[in-house]
């Protein structure tokens, strides 16, 4: 097996090189294919990391049992989204919403985003992690505004303002962590290396760590889309190209959450510091309940699913906030399955919006008749995201609810309330979109069903049978998270 093994640096470096290359090359066919190839190569490099024993962490990069879950998920969804993206942008070029010049920019930014996210996930250095998340924010801001319509610019501006305030707060928190570490570890690079920080966290000044964590939670929490800092998220999802909505929901929110988790582990290593759990539980529940009720008033199909992402990030943050082996396990599973399902839904929604030339929910009906593949794909996706058996999310939500009932029944009641309210909204809208008399225009689309059904099959398989190897792995990671 050993000759397949590549150094971990390749995972962020392949997309970085591809970004430079794609910025220079013209032509849709060639660049779309290269985009797919580059993400495939990144995925293979990430998979090869599974087959080697972890190397000792360096001052910048780290691969351990926790982040490899995120890296593999990230590169996999990055790959399937690029397949979807190539058919999506083909259509956008035909109808003239994108010009070849902007397409080149789009592909370069897509790869840069992948590179930044992989770097953030592999960073063993809290400064590097911050820089990577900043770059990821910048690239997505530019891509959200790429259609240059009134609404797209407003969405990009809002995202830029809130996103930069978020990363500015996160930087202040990062500096405070360094200030806390410096008397113990000493000046210089070592005091920003995450593995060093965790090893020595017990001797840090707890009150300084507390303040630092508040800044980090608010800063990175903005990027996770937690209420009340979520305002950028629905606009950014609705107005940008749909592949970007898929990547935002499926991946970037996870990356920000991963950063929060890393700092949560740091806090847990210090006995005098506050426990971050209750803060995360509160923000998670608030996001879940808020988004669940807001779902009923949405009229735009992409905004609708963006609110569903806020809801799910709320659930996941809640799970990790509760902590303990079972809730962490449920959180990890929920996160993985949400990424797969939600990006799958956006694949379907992207082609649906192209077929109907609209994103208004009221103008879309009877999809299972007019576009059976897309329609039924969406039905399965929404049923999965609503948490119905036998699909995977039912299992993670069930685990979470039952473990919460055992420990904090009152919180469990709120959690179940949020889940049921969201469930109602999802099925209500699905009924209108997928069934009934077909309405409005119907253009033929050359859709790529591969990515959509690959994701759905994985989610279904996870609901029916989880391989013991995966269960053992997730259990181990849950223990790491504490």
């Amino acid at each position, binding site marked *: 097996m050993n000759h397949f093994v590549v150094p971990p640096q390749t995972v962020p470096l392949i997309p970085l090189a591809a970004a430079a290359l794609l910025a220079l090359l013209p032509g849709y066919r060639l660049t779309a294919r290269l985009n797919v190839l580059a993400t495939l190569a990144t995925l293979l490099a990430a998979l090869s990391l599974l087959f080697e024993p972890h190397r000792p962490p360096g001052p910048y990069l780290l691969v351990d049992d926790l982040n490899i879950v995120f890296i593999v998920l990230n590169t996999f969804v990055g790959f399937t989204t690029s397949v979807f993206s190539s058919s999506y942008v083909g259509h956008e070029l035909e109808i003239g919403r994108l010009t070849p010049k902007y397409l080149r920019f789009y592909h370069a930014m897509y790869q840069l985003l992948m590179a930044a996210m992989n770097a953030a996930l592999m960073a063993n250095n809290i400064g590097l992690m911050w820089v990577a998340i900043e770059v990821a924010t910048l690239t997505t801001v530019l891509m959200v505004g790429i259609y240059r319509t009134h609404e797209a610019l407003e969405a990009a*501006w809002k995202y830029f303002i809130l996103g930069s305030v978020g990363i500015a707060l996160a930087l202040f928190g990062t500096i405070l962590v360094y200030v806390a570490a410096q008397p113990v570890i000493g000046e210089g690079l070592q005091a920003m290396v995450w593995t060093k920080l965790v090893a020595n966290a017990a001797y840090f000044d707890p009150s300084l760590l507390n303040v630092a964590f508040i800044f980090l939670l608010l800063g990175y929490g903005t990027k996770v889309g937690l209420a009340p800092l979520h305002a950028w998220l629905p606009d950014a999802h609705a107005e940008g190209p749909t592949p970007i909505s898929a990547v935002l929901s499926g991946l970037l929110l996870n990356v920000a959450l991963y950063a929060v988790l890393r700092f949560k582990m740091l806090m847990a290593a210090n006995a005098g510091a506050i426990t971050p759990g209750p803060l995360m539980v509160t923000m998670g529940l608030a996001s879940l309940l808020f988004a669940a009720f807001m779902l009923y008033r949405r009229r735009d199909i992409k905004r609708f699913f963006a609110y569903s992402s806020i809801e799910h990030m709320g659930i996941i943050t809640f799970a990790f906030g509760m902590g303990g082996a079972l809730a962490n396990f449920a959180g990890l599973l929920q996160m993985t399955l949400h990424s797969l399902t939600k990006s799958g839904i956006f694949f379907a929604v992207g082609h649906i919006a192209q077929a109907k030339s609209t994103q208004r929910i009221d103008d879309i009906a009877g999809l299972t008749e007019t576009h059976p593949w897309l329609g039924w794909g969406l039905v399965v996706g929404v049923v999965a995201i609503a948490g119905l058996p036998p699909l995977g999310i039912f299992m993670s939500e069930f685990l979470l609810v039952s473990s919460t009932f055992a420990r904090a029944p009152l919180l469990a009641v709120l959690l179940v309330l949020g889940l049921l309210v969201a469930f109602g909204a999802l099925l209500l809208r699905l009924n209108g979109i997928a069934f009934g008399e077909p309405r409005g225009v119907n253009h033929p689309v050359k859709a790529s069903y591969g990515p959509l059904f690959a994701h759905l099959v994985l989610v279904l398989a996870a609901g029916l049978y989880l391989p013991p190897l995966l269960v053992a792995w997730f259990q181990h990671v849950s223990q790491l998270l504490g």
Partner: protein
Amino acid sequence: MPNLAFDTAHLLAGGLVLISFMLLYQDRLTSLLNVYALHALVLALSVAWQAHLQNAPHLYVTAGLALGFKAIIIPVALRRIIERLGIHREIETVVGIGPTMLAGMALVGLSMVVMLRVTAAATPIARQDLAFALAVVLLGLLMMVTRRNAVSQIVGFISLENGLNLAATGARGMPLVVEISVAFSILIAFIVIGIFLFRIRERFDSVDIGALDQARGEQR
């Protein structure tokens, strides 16, 4: 003798907070940009002083960046933009000057209380730098909230970022400071010089964010 180093650092950092206050009550874009240039200049001096104190030559890069890029290029670029757009008019503020100043004072008080209490273990210079830096960050946030004009929101954001630079250089021996300041400069450059203002102008002939706030058919 013992306190020349500390007093100078204190003076420069305190000056930064004071200039943040001056930014709050400017009601014309041109004077706002002048005050901002002063803000960046004081930051450059403060960073250079830290570089001298800590004997850290790489911090001179950050200082030079603050001087060349933030104190000269950005204000000049923004001035050209507002001249081309013909908006030397007054800045509409959402909240009046009086309440804004009061809120600013409360924020400065808050940052002193919080930071001085939790940084008891740090060196005096790092302590006061962190406290002042948080004050500058919060004042920058306040400015972004109280202004509706895109140019003054950008100025609010880059003054906030100056506060972060102050904190990063005050934390003795912090690695990656130069890289982080470069990353931030790239972010600002992207935003200021290009994309948003040009696109916003191209489409609407206005840089008033209020004009962007269009109903999306489901809210408000």
